[in-house]
């Protein structure tokens, strides 16, 4: 599976964190807050403003600068996620929008 940065995921998509590509402070900060290798994150919101992810049962808002430092391996979206897209009013095409 391809490795992407967290900010490139669309609402409902899930990924497994493979690493953090940032400075020491940012990396440790993210680790402390639970963005460690192997954790599963799910995108709750990704339009304007900071991204909201769900991580181990809690919701965390993080700015794009940080999200871009987080490398994730995309999980194949399940049917449930597809439903989540519909609910959130997002289309698959949003995936390809480059920022």
């Amino acid at each position, binding site marked *: 599976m391809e490795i992407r940065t967290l900010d490139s995921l669309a609402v409902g998509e899930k990924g497994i964190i493979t690493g953090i590509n940032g400075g020491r402070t940012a990396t440790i900060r993210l680790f*402390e807050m639970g963005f460690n290798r192997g*954790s599963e994150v799910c995108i709750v919101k990704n339009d304007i403003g900071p991204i909201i992810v769900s991580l181990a*049962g809690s919701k965390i808002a993080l700015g794009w600068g940080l999200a871009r430092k987080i490398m994730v391996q995309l999980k194949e979206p399940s049917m449930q996620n597809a439903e989540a897209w519909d609910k959130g009013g997002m289309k698959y095409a949003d995936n390809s929008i480059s920022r």
Partner: protein
Amino acid sequence: MQTIALVGNPNSGKTTIFNALTGTNQHVGNWPGVTVEKKEGIIKFQNREYSVIDLPGTYGLGGYSEDEAIARDFILKGDHDIIINVVDATNLERNLYLTTLLMEMGAKVIIALNMVDDAEKRQIKVDYERLSKELGIPVVPTVASKGRGIDQLMQKTAETIGRKNHIRDISYGKEIDEKVAFLKDIIERHQIDREYPSRWLAIKLLENDEDVIGKYQDNAAFKEGVLAEVKKTTDEILATSGMEPEMVILDKRYEFINQVVSKAVVRPKEEIDTISDKIDRVVTHKYFGIPIFALIMFIIYQLTFTIGQDILGEALAGGIEKLGELVAGWLEAVNSPEILNLFIIDGLFGGVGAVLEFIPLIMVMYMMFGILEDSGYMARAAYIMDRSMRALGLHGKTFISMIIGTGCNVPGVMSTRTLENKKDRMIAILINPFMSCGARLPIYMVFIAAFFPKHGGLVLFSLYAIGIIVALTMGKIFSKVFRGEESFFIMELPPYRMPTIKGIGLYMWEQVWSFVHRAGTVIFLVVSLLWILSILPYGVEPYSEDSILGIIGSFIAPIFRPAGFGTWQASVGLFAGIAAKEAVVGTLGMVYAGVEEGARLITSIQGVFTPLSAYAFLIMSLLYTPCAATIATIYKETNSKRWAWFSAVYTFLIGWTGAVLVYQVGRLFGLA
């Protein structure tokens, strides 16, 4: 007396446990970063007294922000006999990270597994005994908000405090474990005078922890003997694993946590789409988020005005007036000296009474703020504002400190401690005074009642909005002036909760009490002092321009002439407001009460101000120099007299400019 320290992630419920343990009523709120200082309390349990310390929430021991540094320094200093590690049961994986750090320190720890009711609701099953066994730490399930498990927690704490620890050492994999043991030996052989356990020191050195290394910077033996070995070991690990040792250690901590969690916790396969998600979909919506926030604030001010002022406030004002007349009649009946009558009627009832009339208003307003806080919406407000804040070069969390500033600028300024970056924090401190605090409300209310009775909510809303706009504009300017590294935004969004009557009641009470307390102390003192100045020199017509107060006021007055309120009364009012903002109304109430017998402040100012000059006066009151307590807090938080002076002077200039602009532009448009 033995000391218990409460340690845990932000918003895990430390302060709620602290309140339950000590029977105090420290402020709690449903968002991360409510507690920014350490607080102390006493608990008596089984005839023994313990001191309990509530620390700011922290995710780790990095101490990135001021509040986290307070927690870190306290934990590392070791002035405690036991740590109660408050862990959010719905969030074990992430909360246990801090636990592993405490375990490494060899600290005596007991876990309060909090919010187990929420975990149950979300079908997260935690096997407490297994968890305790895996960690080697006693675990007590609690629901602090309902007082459940608190006795058991204290029982367990009292038992554990005198016992030896059985905490497990965390394994970082064979290679690192060997290196840690090797370094531990070296540290012990060098017999350096150290305050920390040697294994922990070895780990921290491998992690390249700057603070710890800095502590031994002046120790030559340590530098040569230990640090050189650390460097060698680090290079070896880097060569074999291709990773910095600190990264390997971080990884292994989570590996350990995952093992523990997999044995002790069963989570539902798919997280249920909670109500929180549904609410968030609406209130954080990309287009509707900000309008919804504005609407909520507008409704709050509108309700504050109608219920707090028109209904309850009027009733109380009438009551105070009646009481004043009653006292006046009684004083005359007992033939008390004229000077005492003057002081009691004009100074106390006219001045302090004018301030107390606003208690219902404060109650209603902060009841609604309390609901917002307890529900968890505050963190969302910061979230939806982040984009606008960022466009101005400000940090999203700045907005939280601004919202807190609408209660009082003192906690508003203090709450900036959660900002990691020095530059962001400095800006947040300097713009906070523009956020209109509760003490300024009485000024608005008096003038609204006198000049804009039909549009009260709108005028009130406009003042708060102008405060925010000026704060953001100044923020933009400061962000261009100050230099600093780029900062990042990361914030946990707490789940929504139904606000409790107790929580809101406490919040309301806190505000009302501080308001009444100030009225009885600072305001009373200021008004008394000014009253004396207003009847001196002896024989002068009281409250006239010839009194000392009148002379002082007349001296200042010309600078306010371009703003339309160049009277000596307005000038001394604003002057008194630097002591405390309520004193503006208190002083005006006093100086005008004496002029027309029995006339209330509202009717007396109608003859002196025009609607336009009244609005200019409100703008001045909103923006000019913050009260003494705020200036003192700015001094404390920036640790700089220069910045404290600066904040006092620049806000005055901005307030004056704003008032003059309003008045002059208004006149151009033919307003009066």
